[in-house]
């Protein structure tokens, strides 16, 4: 290795290390705070806890985190499923159609990506309310899906442009109709795109707070972020329990990410093409 490339490598490592610290520090603070008492949390915020106490976890679990967890899993799974199903099919048709109008459809879908959630919150609430879906898991799963589709369609679109056409042609000669080609050949070979699309949307939907707060007022349908928010009162907040709840909420996502990390990175690396 030359001196120059070594200098570059050291420089890159330094930047990446610094960034990693920046990202991991809040996570670290969250975890250690969960083991502290309220008083210790404020007196020595960055130090390790004197005694590792699970009291905060007990208090957090006590407000019904297990139920929130189930709700979060259901809502995330349903919305991600809808997103992947609709986006992949839409992107495939957009990527394969030669009709010029499809380019405009694609542009329209991508433009949907630019609409901020806050700007449509009130009409969205009215829509969900008049559909009679308030306080149901669908009330947030459907909007989540709608919000996830543009980005995921873009992701699949770039992936399908690179997908080898010969495989599809071979399948057509083998007797597959268009839909069969998609479900039997294209989709089974879209692992990287599915994995990264799913992780992106899962993270977003798992953490989503404002819509969930708006649509879900009953405790039995609340998702984790809104449920954990219940630990804060008007005048006081149980910070250690809050941190413990968040720590619990973080674990499932980390597991999913570790499982699909290989696909995720590979797919993102190709996204710039």
């Amino acid at each position, binding site marked *: 290795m030359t001196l120059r490339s070594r200098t570059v490598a050291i420089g890159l490592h330094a930047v990446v290390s610094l960034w990693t610290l920046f990202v991991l520090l809040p996570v670290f603070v969250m975890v250690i705070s969960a083991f502290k008492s309220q008083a210790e949390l404020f007196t020595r915020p960055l130090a390790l806890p004197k005694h590792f106490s699970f009291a905060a976890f007990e208090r957090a679990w006590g407000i019904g985190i297990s139920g929130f967890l189930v709700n979060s899993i259901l809502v995330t799974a349903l919305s991600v499923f809808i997103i992947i199903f609709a986006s992949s099919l839409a992107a495939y048709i957009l990527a394969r159609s030669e009709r010029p109008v499809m380019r405009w459809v694609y542009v329209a879908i991508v433009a949907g990506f630019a609409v901020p959630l806050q700007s449509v919150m009130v009409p969205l609430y009215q829509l969900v309310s008049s559909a009679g879906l308030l306080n149901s898991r669908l009330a947030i799963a459907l909007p989540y899906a709608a919000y996830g589709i543009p980005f995921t369609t873009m992701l699949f679109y770039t992936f399908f442009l690179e997908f*080898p056409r*010969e*495989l599809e*042609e*071979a*399948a*057509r*000669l*083998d*007797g*597959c109709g268009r839909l*069969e080609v998609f479900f*039997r*050949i294209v989709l*089974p*070979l879209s692992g990287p795109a599915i994995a990264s699309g799913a992780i992106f949307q899962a993270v977003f939907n798992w953490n989503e707070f404002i819509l969930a707060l708006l649509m879900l007022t009953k405790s039995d349908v609340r998702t984790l972020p809104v449920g954990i928010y219940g630990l804060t009162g008007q005048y006081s907040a149980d910070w250690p329990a809050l941190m413990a709840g968040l720590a619990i909420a973080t674990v499932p996502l980390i597991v999913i990410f570790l499982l699909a990390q290989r696909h995720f990175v590979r797919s993102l690396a190709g996204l710039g093409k």
Partner: protein
Amino acid sequence: MPHLEVRDVVKRYGKVTVLSGVSFSAEKGEFVVMVGPSGCGKSTLLRSIAGLEEISSGSVSIAGRDITTAEPSDRGVAMVFQNYALYPHMTVAQNMGFALKVARRPKAEIETAVTRAAEILRITDHLGKYPKALSGGQKQRVAIGRAITRAPEVFLFDEPLSNLDAALRSQMRIELSRLHRELGATMLYVTHDQTEAMTMADRIIVMNGGNIEQIGSPLDLYNRPATRFVAGFIGSPRMNFITAHVARLAGRSVGFTLGEGRPPLDLEFAPGETLPRLGDAVTLGIRPEALGDEGEVHIADADVTVVEALGRETLVYSDAHTLRTTDSESLDGYFAQLVPSQSDKRLGQHIELRANRSAFVVFAADGATLHDASPIHHK
């Protein structure tokens, strides 16, 4: 009735015409090879027959059935692609049986068909493997096996050997010829490699610029090319072309210029061959193997510029200074000469380029052949 019949097929992409009214037919059991330079429309024609491209006008029929608008899978064709196009998520056996599975055939039938095809192609040991574990040659066998299990009326090959290395390619050529004999199937094969065409074909279709230049047996095309394009495309190294014009006409004897201040070259035109007119610009053609130190006609004096000793034969390129060849393959303007033995010719050596009168081909300005050469027979 021909087994495969293509009639007046036209294919346009917007304003660009890729195929301009192509017609040909193939008999049952025939091995037909389509050759031509890249962009000549041969692949488009094959894909049109497969149903992967919609044609703008014309018709295609197989076994007496018009399939012009039929779905690819309903045409009775199977195709082998250049990059194999094996499904990476299926094993070799699943790849080969996929068409039958899609057609919902009973499991036992699929298994029999796959086993039989695997035996023919000697890939029985690999049936359980995934494509990524196979070498290029093995993948191509699987791709061919996938075609065989479908028992199609017509096999379509789209440059199937161009991703293989030279040794494997010549092995697969022999293998494909064997396969053709064993199956007795009608095969349509696209390639840009004239060696593949010459060695495997019953008949060759030479295409150029969206048109068919000539259809014929390999030796027909070699001995009696219908156009200058065919003469240049078939045969390696390429035929030498010299620009000339008609200097005298006497009965069926035509005299052509061979450079300034040289006596004209007189060639006797056979009855039935079209005579050019006095002053017409023509191209004279002569095969590299017809050029030598001996012969009735002294074409030019030349200096040897490149000697390629291939062992069994020697390729000599020489510079004739005032007389240049046109449209040559590699060394523009130089004469290519193929000596069927090892040669003692050295760089810079002064040589005479000679040939027999019967070795010359004459092409009109529009490329059509006016006068044929006689084939050379070595004793």
